């Protein structure tokens, strides 16, 4: 029945709507550069969302854990085979994304009689020089974007824009890891709060309308409010944090921050959350 062009367009449209719904409960992912490399941060429910791909490549994801695993494995496989057959410096994030997984994700998305990948992916690449640092994001339909400085994954484009504009407003080239973590978490909170608001708005639509102050939702909450929001959620979840550290000894630059290091670096208001 999808042979008819109209049906196919309709089916892809439905699929988009279905997929958009899948990310509503998801936790945003934030990546930003700091003076020593690239930081990735999110708050996860138990299954990790940040991974090491290659010597200078890290992965962050949103969506279905099994789909993320499948794509993670194909990235790992491609990266290591390429690194062995050519050289580690030929393994670049942009090649892996553009010629590796993006076409696979697009194909799965458009084959409407098969299941699509329920994922949004972020690939961070530590360049040999700081100006070569790159961040790539891929959507569930295979479209990808390249960015420098900072990139995020969130449920909707609106939320992503909100988070990015907050990040860009406060970024600087000389952020320490501690400052970057603070900023990353606040930006995560912006995304997470926006997810909550979207959900409330939807429920409000379903129920008889209550008077809502639409404009006040647009105001950016203070830093304290944002950190308090992280604190409220991190209690039952886990702050997950990884870095691509330019100064790391050896060839592998990826390091996930363990509890002790994390609680030392976190903003004061959050230190007790991790310690428990």
């Amino acid at each position, binding site marked *: 029945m999808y042979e008819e062009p109209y049906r196919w367009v309709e089916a892809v449209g439905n699929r988009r709507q279905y997929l958009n719904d899948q990310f509503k409960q998801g936790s945003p992912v934030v990546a930003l550069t700091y003076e020593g490399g690239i930081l990735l941060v999110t708050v996860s429910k138990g299954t990790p969302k940040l991974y090491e*791909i290659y010597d200078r490549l890290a992965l962050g994801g949103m969506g279905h854990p099994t789909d993320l695993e499948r794509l993670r*494995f194909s990235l*790992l496989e491609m990266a290591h*085979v390429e690194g062995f057959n050519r050289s580690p410096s030929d393994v670049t994030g942009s090649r892996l994304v553009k010629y590796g997984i993006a076409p696979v994700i697009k194909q799965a998305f458009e084959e409407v009689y098969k299941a699509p990948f329920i994922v949004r992916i972020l690939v961070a690449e530590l360049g040999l020089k700081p100006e070569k640092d790159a961040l790539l994001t891929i959507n569930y339909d295979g479209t990808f974007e390249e960015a420098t400085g900072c990139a995020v994954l969130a449920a909707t484009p609106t939320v992503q824009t909100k988070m990015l504009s907050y990040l860009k407003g406060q970024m600087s080239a000389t952020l320490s890891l501690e400052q970057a973590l603070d900023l990353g978490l606040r930006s995560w909170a912006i995304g997470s709060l926006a997810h909550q608001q979207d959900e409330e708005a939807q429920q409000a639509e379903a129920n008889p309308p209550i008077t809502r102050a639409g404009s006040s939702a647009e105001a950016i909450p203070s830093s304290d409010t944002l950190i308090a929001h992280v604190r409220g959620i991190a209690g039952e979840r886990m702050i997950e944090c990884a870095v691509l550290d330019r100064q790391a*000894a*050896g060839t*592998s630059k990826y390091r996930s921050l363990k509890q002790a290091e994390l609680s030392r670096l976190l903003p004061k208001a959050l230190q007790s959350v991790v310690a428990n």
Partner: protein
Amino acid sequence: MGMQGDFFQLLKEQGYTLGVPTAVGAGYTLTNATTILAFKYRDGVLVAGDRRATAGNMVMYDRTDKVLEIDRHSVMAIAGVPATAYEMVRILEHSFKYYRRTQLQELSFDGKLRAVSKLLKDNVPAALAGTGAVVPVFAGYDMEQSAAKIYFYDILGAEFEGVEYAVSGSGSPTIRGILHYLNTWGEQPLNALLQEQAMVQALRLLASAAEFDSATGGVNREASLYPIIKLITGAGVQTVPDATLKPLYESQVVRYV
């Protein structure tokens, strides 16, 4: 899918073969002789190798690094055909990383040993044909057991634990006896040596090997060429810089008779 996290298997699935058995052409001599050694000292394990690569009577190269770091806590010293040996090291390096990144845990020390055996086993036809024989020494620090370990292999892939020390290469018969003597009747057993004493012994052992084996390179002070010495402890692998070896060699190895 990649449940096993086995990189070598992945390569094979893509059509890769490690050793292709080819008979050595008449009149062609392969590069293969050397001296490598490893012994346990107080803090961990020391692995050392000379730097000469030879083909028959010819010196191919005098800056070879035969003691290769595979990951933060393991080192493979190679004797045999360098082309195959370097390839094996590259496979191992990628295998350990691939396992860690796919399975989200470090490959155990025993798992690493098994990976070395498997490569050697796959390489048997090439080894017997004479073009790919590799006789490595694998040493590392087992983080789970907090212990330094040394293993050596024959060309067929049999694995032997060197409880105190292990040697390989054409110059090794000379120093094997010395190591036995030192460890049994020396002032102190090898595993009680301090780091500096261990380095001095390694330099002396390699100098002895070079004395009796033309395929083992000695120290060339004019060219500032010293052996490669690596120390593996709980903190990881550390390469001893020439600047440290030079004064040790001059004060405790050279004899002005």
